[in-house]
């Protein structure tokens, strides 16, 4: 069973209905470490040594965060800036993260329809996530498509329930060694047949 590290960053978790549902649903799973960055580093003073150790101990890294202004909350960017060091995560001798798997789990207020060239956000989620994708690639990780909970402002309780169950199933699939060939060029992990089936 693969070990999953969820780097969760939300500056106001206590006010987030959707993220509470998601996190609470998976937090007791075996071999899953939820690392709550805003609770761990309220002063943005990140313990780089500790973060590196955590990364080394896990096979799959999930950046779980709300999609603020087409990006992640600032503490997560801080985390990337500080932890992914030259010659550790990347660079000629940087191979600490080689062959690990990496993906984003995001929540967005806007629905999937508005993230396209015709919608008011003009670009797709995959386009907005390019910096994360390239970061993963530079660090030698395999980057998976995102799992996205979208349209959270108008999300019904039933839909939220589906999302959280799917998140749980996704974790199980990842731990059971989901491979990149299983995606069939899907833009979102939400759309893979194993999750669609239910």
């Amino acid at each position, binding site marked *: 069973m693969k070990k999953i590290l969820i780097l969760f960053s*939300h*500056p*106001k*978790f*206590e*006010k*987030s209905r959707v993220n509470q549902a998601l996190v609470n649903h998976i937090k007791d799973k075996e071999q899953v470490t939820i690392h709550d960055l*805003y*609770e761990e580093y*309220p*002063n943005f003073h990140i313990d780089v040594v500790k973060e590196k150790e955590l990364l080394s101990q896990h096979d799959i890294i999930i950046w779980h965060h*709300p999609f*603020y202004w087409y990006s992640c*909350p600032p*503490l997560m960017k801080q985390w990337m800036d500080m932890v992914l060091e030259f010659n550790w995560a990347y660079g000629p001798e940087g191979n600490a993260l080689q062959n690990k798997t990496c993906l984003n789990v995001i929540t967005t*207020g806007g629905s999937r329809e508005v993230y396209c060239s015709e919608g008011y956000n003009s670009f797709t989620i995959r386009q907005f996530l390019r910096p994360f994708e390239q970061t993963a690639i530079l660090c030698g990780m395999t980057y998976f498509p995102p799992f996205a909970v979208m349209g*959270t*402002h*108008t999300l019904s309780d039933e839909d939220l329930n589906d999302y959280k169950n799917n998140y749980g199933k996704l974790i199980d699939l990842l731990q059971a060694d989901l491979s990149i060939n299983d995606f069939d060029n899907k833009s979102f992990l939400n759309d893979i047949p194993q999750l669609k089936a239910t």
Partner: protein
Amino acid sequence: MTGSILFEAIVFLAGAIICVSIAKRLGLSSVIGYLLAGVLIGPYVLGFIGQEGQDILHFAEFGVVVMLFLIGLEIEPKNFWNMRKTILGMGGIQVGGTMLLSYILFAALGFDWKVALVISMAVALSSTAIALQTIKEKGLMNTTFGTSSFSILLFQDIIVIFMLGFIPLLANSEHKTSTENHSEHANLLENLPVGLQTLAIILSVVLIIVAGRYLIVPMLRKVAKTGVRELLIAAALLIVFGISFLMEYVGISPALGAFLGGVVLSNSEFKHELESTLEPFKNLLLGLFFMAVGASINFIVIAKSPLTIGGILLAIIVLKAVVLFITGHIFKLKLDQKLLLTFSLAQIGEFAFVLLSFAFGLNILEQEQMDMMLVITALSMSITPIISMINERLILPKIGTKESIKRPMDHIAKSQKIILVGFGHFGSTIGRFLRSHGVEATILDHDSNRVDFLRKMGFEVYYGDATRLDLLESAGISEAKIIICATNKLSVSKAISKIVKEKYPHVEFMIRTKNRYDAYELLNLGHQNIYRESLETSLTLAKDVLSKMGFRKYTLTRQVQNFIKYDEDSLRRLASEPKREDDYIFKAKKELEQQEKFLNEDFKRGVVDYDNHWDSEHIRKALENPNTKK
């Protein structure tokens, strides 16, 4: 006319005001001013006060009692217990050594052995009033020298009980009747066997401790509830009077009893109220006491045999100084602490008046001998503050911990000089952090042990009173960029700011304060960089409490920042309000009202309502009801 109480009061008060303000202007201790005032108004110079000086002396000794009560208030029982070795050791060596040497001296001068013994007892005791007043005035109570002096003085207070019990044994039996003359010293227990006397003394000490807890504190609570200020003053005086009375009744020094009473009450919530209430009484009574000492110097006795008296006076002071120096040496005090101790306790104290007149009443001493010793006592008390001053100004700067050690300054210190006043717990943290950034602050401190230690660590440290402009100048105030006042004494920070702002207005001040009230004062003096020591630490604690209860840390961290900003704003707003009542009890009441006001305002702001960032709730609401704005 001299008999009128009003007239005497006028004479004393005017004398004090004139002489003490002159002494202070010359940079001398206020004790010297009072003594000088006493000499001036006494029977031999201006003659305003006649022989009643002795009575006034007796009355004013009450100032010493109040002072020891106040010192007791500052010592918690646990600390007192920790001091027991120093008290017994240093006190024992000092009293024993001095008695031995002075007995040899007076026996050699041809005095009867009994007389020599009584005098040696009197000589062994130093003046609590003069020594402690001077130490407190200089803020040296917490130095090694301060606690050593205090321990010795406390031991003397205890040993004097035994001396008073022992002296009657020296009296010839046919004079026994004359003890009756001394009814004020006679007490309930005089006729009891020694064992019962001891028991009574122990019982009364226990009584003080028990009464402190279960009688005095509840009484003070009741009094405080009435909100009548005078009642609190009355209660405070009642406590001190009561303890003194009880102690005299069983034959213990009232000062010692008052000290114990103070220690018992040091843990109570009334500590500060008692302090602020009794402080003015103590100061006035002590002033009166010093003036009475000055007035009681009998110049006719001096004129009769100036050489003998001068010789004995000198011999006694040298003898006491030698014993004190050795005592300090045994207890491994540093050289300058030893010298401070030596010179501040080298006088004969006020207990000598009691012992000598008691022995005179028992016909052990003759009139002449007593007169001579009383004059010597008064003179020695007047001289020691002057000797101490010479020690501090001329001797100390040359030996031991020097005021400064010249050290080549590195380039940072040269270009942006920082002066740090006070290197206690607060200041040392600042100093360490600055140093970790390569910034070497120039440190000023008045504890020589600490100063030597810091110098060993390589800090540039100046030793002495930071309110002296010359010391600040030699520490380089003229080219300083910032001066940090890390002392916990508002008076020191204010004094420094006053002298520095006048001459070096370019120096920026950064000041530690205890609380809002000190901060108000500094704000009104035009200071902006004020750091309340309690603000951030208490908020950090509160934040951690809420975090343990389940609140999110990041939100709390932001709230703490908001709270600090809000509190700082309100501080500045309230500072400009008209001056507040100075009385402690009203101040405390006012403070509670103010706290309540803050809490109400906090409540009105709502706990998290104004902190809406990243909260999608309101967006959702707006999307659900597109017609309502926001």
